[in-house]
């Protein structure tokens, strides 16, 4: 129990952010027309590519002789980048097609 209280006190700021972000996420999506569901999903997909930041931190924090951590980290950065770059580019391509006719 004390551990939990300590945890909450230590991470209060993050807990606030989590709760507020949940509401922001819900509010933002609100009433989106069905037409935009796919691009929106794709855009959100690209944003969770932010996990690449974590992968980079792993690599930066690795010992230079820890081959296993470095190679797994390498793959993690690569896959995360794929997620980010591919995600944003594909979303842009979808939306580009919407735009032409205006």
């Amino acid at each position, binding site marked *: 129990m004390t*551990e939990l209280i300590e945890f909450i006190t230590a991470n209060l700021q*993050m807990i606030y*952010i*989590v709760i507020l972000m*949940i*509401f*922001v*996420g*819900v509010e*933002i*999506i*609100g009433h989106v*027309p*069905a*037409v*935009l*569901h*796919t*691009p*929106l*999903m794709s*855009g*959100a*997909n*690209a*944003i*969770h*590519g*932010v*996990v690449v*930041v*974590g*992968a*980079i*931190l*792993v690599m*930066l924090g690795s010992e230079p002789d820890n081959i*296993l951590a470095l190679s*797994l*980290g390498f793959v*993690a*950065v*690569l*896959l*995360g*980048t*794929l997620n980010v*770059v*591919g*995600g*944003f*580019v*594909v*979303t*842009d391509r979808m*939306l580009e*097609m*919407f735009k*032409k*006719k205006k």
Partner: protein
Amino acid sequence: MEFILTLIYLVASITYILGLKMLGHPKTARKGNLIAAFGMGIAIIGTIFIYPKEVPMMIYVLIGIAILIGTIIGWLVAKKVAMTKMPELVSIFNGMGGASAALIGLIEFHHYQGQTLSIVTILAGLIIGSISFSGSMIAWGKLNGTINKPIRIPKYNIINNLFFIVLVAFAGFIAYQGIDSQLYLYVLFVGALAYGVLFVLPIGGADMPVVISLLNSFTGLAAALGGFLYGNMVMLTGGILVGSAGTILTFAMCDAMNRSLSSVIFGAFGATTSTATDEASRKIKGNIKETTPSDVAILMNYANKVIIIPGYGLAVAQAQHIIHELEELLIKKGVEVKYAIHPVAGRMPGHMNVLLAETNVSYDRLIEMEDINPEFPNTDVVFVVGANDVVNPAAHNDPSSPIYGMPILEAENAKYIVVNKRSMKPGYAGIENELFYNQKTSMLFGDAKDALGKLVSELKNM
């Protein structure tokens, strides 16, 4: 320096919120995407270059190479892929993010021994990321047809749930006992991968968009857990935002199909469906009427109003250009032409809009379901191209049908219905369509591009 990084993360978080918000409106969507991409770019660059500790050059080089390879592959694939393949691609990219999160967990597990809550965070990220990865790969296989039947082991619901409970219990055991065992860790990893497969396999292909959206929010959650672990604000905000927005989007998609999320996951398209299908197909009486391109051309030529209902078959056949040509030709002949867009036509919501937009079909000709349904009774010809389940009247009048209750395009109310299909094979939901047996319906068999090409040249000669 670290203050600058904090600032960068703050700006990046704002761009995600703004970007997602703008993605929700047709006019601002593209700019929103670019804004979020910009935020991501500065967050990544800031993370690399503003790191408090000394880091060997070799590691920087490795990171650079990984980012370079990822960028090139991601860019090329995203640019080259055909419009029809985009849903699959989103699924793959989602899986990559999940895998990345899982790998982070694998590496960091050993480093946080003794800090129970950190270990819990790591293991949760590992499990969720792994499920998202393997689930997305199965979803990808289903979308491109490699895995085309829902595969169900008997009592799969119970087995899946038990499996998941065991998985979580095992993770809890590792964390609580503070066991620093790589073996246990990898067993957990493989178990989570297996669960992802079990989770998606029983779900029908038609529901894949919902599944991908759900897995999308899972990956968001996994990223957020990473943020929690490192106290990294940009991962936390980005991850939670996608997690919650993705969940809402998942529900919105279910709504569009009039299904509940639990019926998607636990299977209203379940084992009972196959027997119901057999009965339904036996029940349908009547003959199908085959027609020729020239007959259809005559029919359309003298029509006042034609409504086109596009479906996945149009996308597969890459017939979006030729259908636009048909539309223009008919308009020139004084026929009123509209497209009826079912919210889940194709493989993803908005799939048809994207496809038709590619060929410059005017926005105002694409009419959404609620607005077009009242127009069918005074429509002369409805032309169904490669769509099936979205016009199946069984959704209205057959309570035993697995799609019962789904809103459909009421094509049957038009004076004539022409259906272009490759064969009489049932659609994605795997059920018969009595519309094809309707007195007013005639079938124009053949590949959409082929059949439409012939139809257009017949029309030109009139």
